[in-house]
């Protein structure tokens, strides 16, 4: 009787293996939930702080995007804090767009070389070069920018050397590897028979590349460029070291200016939690966050629309 009960019990109870299976599944789900929670928390925390500038401190949202005086500790005649972030916004977009414009042709050229012209040498030389460029820390880029590019700009283009031109040159090298390796993926995704068909029609290699392969890879290359732009937009220290950090509208490419990230890194340590100047900085962080989200959405849109079938 006793014996039977024991067997019965062991048949009814979940086995050791199924218990372990459940624990494992719960554990892995907990880990993935943690990541999702962190993402939500980042948005909630940054948003509540960033919005406080406009709700608690009576900042004017229109001023934030159009005025050029950044002095959040003080208020203007009508009692709104001076939170004109236009100089930083212009600065951020200027370095991002310019560096993308310079980097894209080089990245596409390198990608074509690696996929179409000489895959073997591309794999042996360019691949490691690109991996190393990715690996160099951003402060090192900033330091080289400060000691090599800024003096170079000063002697050849005038001004103090600090400014958008120096920032662009540093960012160009920093986003180049990202854009290149993603463009390589885009070119590799173009089916082989596209090339064969074109060559069979008597097209030269360049005609095939230019008229067939590149056209087919346009969505992938655009994704790569936007990805690079999102990198450039969010890059903080390297840019901060070479741009001059003056909250002035950039007059030209060599006048000291600033980006959202540079003012953020400079200012956060010098303001008290909860003060107007601190909240205003969090508004800049929120803008950065939203821009990074926008770049993400753009990438999604493009890759969904342009997927090769």
């Amino acid at each position, binding site marked *: 009787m006793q014996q039977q009960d024991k067997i019965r019990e062991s048949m009814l109870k979940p086995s050791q*293996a199924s218990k*372990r*299976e459940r624990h*494992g*599944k719960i554990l*892995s*789900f*907990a*880990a*993935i939930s943690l*990541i*999702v929670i*962190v*993402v939500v*928390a*980042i948005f909630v*925390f*940054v948003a509540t*702080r960033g919005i406080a500038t406009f709700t608690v401190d009576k900042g004017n949202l229109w001023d934030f995007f159009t005025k050029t005086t950044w002095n959040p500790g003080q208020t203007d005649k009508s009692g709104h804090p001076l939170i004109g972030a236009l100089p930083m916004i212009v600065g951020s977009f200027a370095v991002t767009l310019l560096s993308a414009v310079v980097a894209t042709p*080089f990245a596409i*050229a*390198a990608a074509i*070389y*690696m996929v179409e*012209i000489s895959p073997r040498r591309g794999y042996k*030389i*360019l691949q490691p*070069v690109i991996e190393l*460029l990715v*690996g*160099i*820390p951003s*402060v*090192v880029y*900033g*330091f*080289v920018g400060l000691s*090599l590019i800024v003096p170079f700009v000063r002697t050849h283009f005038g001004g103090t050397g600090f400014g958008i031109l120096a920032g662009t040159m540093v960012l160009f*090298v920093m986003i180049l590897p990202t854009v*290149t390796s993603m463009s390589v993926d885009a070119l590799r995704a173009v089916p082989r028979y596209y090339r064969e068909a074109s060559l069979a029609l008597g*097209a*030269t*290699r*360049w*005609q095939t590349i230019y008229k067939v392969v590149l056209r087919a890879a346009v969505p992938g290359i655009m994704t790569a460029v936007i990805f690079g732009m999102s990198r450039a*937009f969010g890059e*903080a*220290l390297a840019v901060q*070291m070479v741009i001059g950090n003056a909250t002035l509208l950039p007059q030209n490419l060599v006048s000291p200016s600033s980006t959202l*990230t540079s003012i*953020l*890194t400079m200012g*956060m*340590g010098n303001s008290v*939690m909860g003060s107007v100047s601190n909240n205003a900085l969090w508004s800049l962080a929120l803008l*950065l*966050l939203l821009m*990074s989200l926008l*770049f*993400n959405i753009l990438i999604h849109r493009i890759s969904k629309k342009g997927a090769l079938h």
Partner: protein
Amino acid sequence: MNAKQSDKVATGVLYLMSGTIVAILALLLLYILWNGIPHISWHFLTAPAQSFEKGGGIGVQLFNSFYLLILSMLISTPISICAGIYLSEYAKPNRLTSIIRTSIEILSSLPSVVVGLFGFLVFAVQAGFGFSILSGALALTVFNLPLLTRNVEDSLQSVSFTQREAGLALGLSRWETVIHVILPEALPGIITGMILSAGRVFGEAAALIYTAGQSAPPLDFTNWNPFYIASPLNPMRPAETLAVHIWKINSEGIIPDAKAVSSGASAMLIIAVLLFNVLARYLGNKMYKKFTGV
């Protein structure tokens, strides 16, 4: 110009532009190493930094960088392996999974300065850890998790499906199959990815400025009790890392030999990153050979 000529011209231009990229890297590396290596000496690598005078070293910063790296890898490795297992083995193609994937994508593309500020707000201020190694390690974990998770998932996915079928056919549960069969085979890929991300973490500064702090109090290398305030192992002390140090002496520059110190420190960073890269390739190849028996 006919088609053949333009083909030649275009090829020439492509060679030229690719060559420019190689030249840029060569110039960068040469510049950094040429300027930096003369400053590296035993004294430079071990002496504490000076705040106002010249002749300071980077000993404390170097130690902090490694300690922070190890601590953050200890936290992020188990989480990312579990999360990667979920995505590769358990996730069904539904709404929830697509939300999870989108979150990971968003997290991986967030600017590191935003991650740093989040860490400052949550770990340093709200949780009360202050500017400490612990805050820094947690911020680095947030920064590192999405890439590590994706790397684990990719490595697990590259293991043949027949291995899973074999495990299940032997009566193992899905979890046991993953842990005993799939994970060991995916290990070379996972380890390579981890070393590469270690290199990235080692040079990260933006996420650390407001979490691990910008000061490096002198350490007492004779007392390794983690609760002693000047102990190297104390996770609650502020810890400026090598990368943060380079940034700080260049943007606030009070020490007279800022350029020399940052040249040497930059060279050290580059050498460390190069070593991480070489190590990842070497270990990846070696383990691949061992596991596949080629």
